[in-house]
């Protein structure tokens, strides 16, 4: 259909008599050609000048500022991210250091504590030993004392017995010797 029209109009254009106008195509009536071309040029020129001088720079400005803003924002975001990453690294390092330090502190204090415990144990042990020694000494002393006491008491008892039985006091030195011998035998047995 359109091809037909193209051929049709072309053939009409080529014929100089412009029969088209008579055949019913107002487009081929040259009466208003000059007017149409004139007004077209006038109006198109106006539009062109307005677009070229005002609108295109404005639109371009708008687009450019938007792109600028976007680029700037993106760059800013990038720097922020880098900074954040740096901070994260720093933070991780700090944590690592802190962990190491705390470990050190823990092990140190543990060692100290152990040493402390050890030394305290030792001192307590020493004290205990000393106490034991002291006690042993005391016991020995008591033993000796008691032996002596037992001796004198036994002598007294023996002399009292001799008085009760025989009615007279025996030889003091012989009693003492006998008693001490017996006590020695008994006590050493114990």
């Amino acid at each position: 259909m359109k091809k037909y029209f193209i051929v049709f109009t072309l053939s009409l254009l080529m014929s100089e008599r412009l029969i088209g106008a008579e055949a019913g195509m107002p487009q081929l009536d040259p009466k208003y050609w000059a007017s149409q071309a004139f007004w077209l040029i006038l109006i198109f020129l106006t539009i062109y000048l307005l677009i070229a001088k005002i609108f295109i720079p404005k639109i371009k400005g708008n687009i450019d500022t938007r792109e600028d803003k976007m680029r700037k924002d993106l760059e800013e975001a990038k720097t922020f991210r880098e900074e954040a990453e740096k901070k994260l690294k720093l933070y991780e390092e700090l944590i690592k250091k802190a962990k190491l330090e705390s470990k050190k502190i823990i092990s140190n204090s543990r060692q100290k504590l152990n040493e402390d415990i050890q030394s305290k144990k030792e001192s307590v042990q020493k004290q205990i030993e000393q106490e034991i020694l002291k006690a042993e000494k005391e016991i020995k002393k008591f033993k000796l004392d008691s032996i002596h006491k037992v001796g004198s008491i036994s002598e007294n008892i023996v002399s009292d017995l001799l008085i009760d039985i025989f009615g007279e006091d025996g030889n003091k030195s012989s009693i003492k010797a006998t008693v001490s011998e017996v006590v020695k035998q008994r006590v050493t047995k114990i």
Partner: protein
Amino acid sequence: MAANPMHQFKVHTIGPEIEISGVNLSFTNASLFMTISGVLIIALLLLGTREKKLIPSKAQLLSEMLYNFIAKMISDTAGKKAKPFFPFIFSLFVFILFCNMVGMLPYSFTVTSHIIVTLTFAIFIFIGVTILGFIMHGFKYLKIFVPSGVPLVLLPIISIIEIISYLSRPISLSVRLFANMMAGHTMLKVFGGFVISLGLIGGWLPLTFSVALTGLEILVAFLQAYVFAILTCIYLNDALNLHH
């Protein structure tokens, strides 16, 4: 009125007849609809550039999309050298698009359905591109008619074909747009006429067709504006970057 589908293309004066040295330059309905299209374009762009928002409003988004669309079209077809012609291509595309779209409104007039309008554009582009080619490359621009890698025997024929195709550029460019618009609008009118003449019972079929055609014509309106602009870019590319 329904009888003649060509009636919609009739031009008539609005207001007084203006004649300057024997040439009729009256303000016509064609001029009126050119003005309406122009005013709509300016209104859209004014709305689109009124505020400088980071997140654009609808009008701003539309104008920025138009800008990016045409910028991409030019850089894809004509390269970086065509940058100074960006405003021209932008205006051309937007003007033709708006004229086509305004023409889709019922009872309106389609400016681009007149051969003189499209021919004015095409001849201007043709002359401009030719002058630009000679400015950029001097007489070497004539190489455009001598494609490289063609056997010597074929060269005269090829050159003649190239010259003919070059010279027929303004005609093909203008007739493509004009014929598309005229054919579409004529068909719409014809089918609209069928709806009336077939009445309430039989009119539904052409009405359906009419609706479908309207959609198609809107597509064509956009497509033809795009084709016109992109062909202009291609011609510009030929003049700016001599590939042949």
